[in-house]
């Protein structure tokens, strides 16, 4: 009567998984991603092996290529580090894009107006500070409204992005325009450009220092503890005598300051000027990086580097093999999807129908 069939499978939480097996699963998901990606290349009529070869050589093959790849990874890592404390606090800051841009504006102001008035090292430090302050200010506004009136931070931070991007467009065409009618801000003087270390602007050193800083901050500092408690339960935080409003604002100031610093590095180190797409979606991609790394700063290094390889490799692929530009996004999407899926299989296992019960019935 009610004797319906057992479900084909059901989910069971894993007892525990040795790190070795967890990494086997991660590796397997990587292989699956490569296979699915290969299928896409086949469908497009390309040879998967040479396509992947082009991605690898394009991103890691030559010194120049490696430098390009690192240059893509630096802002990704920096921004992921910036938003990690917010996400730990369950404050959905999706305004890193705008905070990067705001930071770039602050740095550019000093680059354009003080390039001949300050010695280069001082100028670069002032630009960095200006970037951090402007990024922090841009993050402070939504944080203040959230703390004071409980506004929705997701919408608020998102909208702030468009405002600041519009502001740069106005600067490009107005007060900071170089050649009249060009709609372009002139290139920075060499004194306002970040020096290179091993052929890459020294921003990579800054983000590595930030990685250690955020790791220690989140794990061992009182602030990090407060952030974790607020993220888990605001009631508990209140009960323990923490001021949720103050912690929210302080954390957003830090997050915005780091994003602003990233904006400074991109403008001064990579672009050597300011234009409206200075953030170029990094503020959003960094969300993926932060989540995939499960907010672990060291894992973020690996993930941002992997995404940079895919990004750089795919653009080489485009020129070498004449595949559509969107292929890069598709391949990146497949890799991200498989990586997320692997975390699921690390936490759960599927129990299939046949393995229990049946033999017991006959007793």
């Amino acid at each position, binding site marked *: *009567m*009610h*004797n*319906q*069939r*057992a*479900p084909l499978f*059901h989910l*069971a*939480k*894993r*007892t*525990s998984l040795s790190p070795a097996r967890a990494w086997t699963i991660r590796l397997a998901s990587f292989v699956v991603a490569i296979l699915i990606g290969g299928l896409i290349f086949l469908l497009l009529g390309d040879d998967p092996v040479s396509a992947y070869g082009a991605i690898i050589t394009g991103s890691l093959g030559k010194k120049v290529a490696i430098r390009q790849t690192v240059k893509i990874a630096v802002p990704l890592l920096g921004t992921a580090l910036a938003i990690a404390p917010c996400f730990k606090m369950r404050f959905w800051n999706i305004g890193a894009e705008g905070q990067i841009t705001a930071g770039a504006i602050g740095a550019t102001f000093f680059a354009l107006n003080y390039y001949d008035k300050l010695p280069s090292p001082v100028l670069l430090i002032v630009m960095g500070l200006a970037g951090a302050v402007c990024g922090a200010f841009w993050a402070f506004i939504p944080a203040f409204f959230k703390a004071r009136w409980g506004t929705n931070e997701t919408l608020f931070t998102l909208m702030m992005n468009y405002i600041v991007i519009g502001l740069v467009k106005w600067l490009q065409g107005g007060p900071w325009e170089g050649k009249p009618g060009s709609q372009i801000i002139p290139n920075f003087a060499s004194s306002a450009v970040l020096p290179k270390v091993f052929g890459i602007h020294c921003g990579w050193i800054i983000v590595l220092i930030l990685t250690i800083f955020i790791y220690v901050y989140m794990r*061992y*500092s*009182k*602030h*990090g*503890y*407060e952030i*974790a*408690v607020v993220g*888990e*339960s605001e*009631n*508990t935080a*209140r*009960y*323990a*005598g923490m001021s949720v409003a103050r912690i929210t604002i302080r954390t957003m100031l830090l997050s915005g300051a780091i994003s602003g610093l990233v904006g400074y590095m991109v403008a001064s180190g990579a672009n050597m000027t300011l234009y409206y797409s200075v953030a170029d979606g990094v503020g959003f991609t960094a969300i993926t990086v932060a989540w995939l790394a499960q907010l672990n700063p060291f894992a973020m290094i690996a993930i941002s580097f992997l995404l940079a390889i895919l990004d750089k490799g795919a653009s080489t692929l485009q020129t070498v093999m004449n595949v559509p530009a969107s292929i890069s996004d598709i391949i990146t999407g497949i890799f991200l999807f498989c990586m997320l899926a692997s975390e699921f299989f690390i936490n759960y296992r599927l*129990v299939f129908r046949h393995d*229990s*019960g049946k033999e*017991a*019935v006959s007793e």
Partner: protein
Amino acid sequence: MQENCAVEMRNITKNFGPVAANSNVSLSIRRGEILSLLGENGSGKTTLMNMLAGIYYPDSGQIFVNGEEVRITSPKDAFDCGIGMIHQHFKLVSVLSAAENVVLGLDGPAVLDIKEVGRRIKEICERYSFSVSPEKKVYDMSVSEKQTLEIVKVLYRGADILILDEPTAVLTPQETEKLFDVLRAMKADGKAIVIITHKLHEVMELADRVAVLRRGEFAGEMMVRDTNPQEMTNMMVGRPISLNIERPDPVDPAERLVIKGLTVVDSEGITKLDNVTFTAMGGEILGIAGIAGSGQKELLEAVAGLQPVKSGSILYTPEDAPPSELVGKTPKQISNLGVSLAFVPEDRLGMGLVGGMGMTGNMLLRSWRRDKGVFIHAKEPSELAQRIKEELEVMTPSVRYPVRRLSGGNVQKVLVGREIASSPSVLMTAYAVRGLDINTSYTIYNLLTSQKMKGVAVIFVGEDLDVLLELCDRILVLYDGKVSGIVDARTADKEQIGLMMTRLSGKGGNADA
């Protein structure tokens, strides 16, 4: 297999990560019988029943209903088998009426004939002599009405196997009696009934048979008429324990908290506390009784500084310092003065604990501020966590294991243990034993009593009147935010307090109820 066997569970195993909630449990449920499922916290009673109700699916084992093997993968499957479960936390939509809640999720004709539903609800009510008005909205209902509605809901779906998870936890003694009458009527009607409870006197009063789980395993079963509370407790715990609460007389009670005319109005303008006046003494346990939502939470929160006070005063006199006014101080200042609150909310974790952190992280919640410098120092909290784990027998794989994954009783031990460890001079606990098994409850009662003997003013908000009467020195009864009376726990009786909980005695003091 007996003829009247409604459900048989064979060798059921269910694991949650590293925790074995049930291992190899076999249990049978019979028609025309009330089975009581007993066990300590985390012994897997609710998990076992949830597998009958389609909430969980067993990792291995078999379930037979009416002699046929079934697979229950969803609550709908459970209803198809005639199994209905009334959960501890009600699953009702408060903006809908009783009748609408009853038909929610059922297949039916395209046009809903709500009158017909109402008629059938009336029919069910008459059959077992309880009352539900089909048009009444759930938000207008009392706790006991909601529970009745939950029962009607499963009966409407044709359930003849009923599982009730701690149904009396939220009821007054009078309401409990009414519920028991209904259950007896259903039993006479040939239904199979399972009741999960911690209260042994209820088992003795109501059940025919009792099955005991211990740490996820089946510990044994017996007919209630052949057993006694002591034997059941021993089986539950696995060793003999004493069932008496020791109540030494207070030594040199001194005024610790003097509360005068305390009035609290919530953000929606509803008066939660109305002119509450009482005194809590050091060296005594003051019990607070009342139906859920009578202002207990607001009272404790107001003292702890978590609830804005509209008017009134809370004067706090520490043992060795001049009195100070608590109204207007921040939670931080108040807790620094030595006033501690161990509030166990309904979801146990919402306040006071951080679910994602381990015991150590939760101990830090009390001590983090005292640490000097920028960094947290985990050594001392880690030692404290270890000590509480050992002294209170907290079942956890490690002090770093997230407390959210612990069973309710263990979570409470962590919370209460931490509050006591902060050596407060006023210790407020709300529902400290909510849903706790006997063994753990007694551990906590003894902890509170030893605090009292140290001269601490203990305020104990409780649900179980038997316990309040045995544990406390005085009992304050709240009704609708007002003090309905304060009685001497050594002379008061249950009926008296039960009546004071439902209406104002008008006089305060030892009212003749």
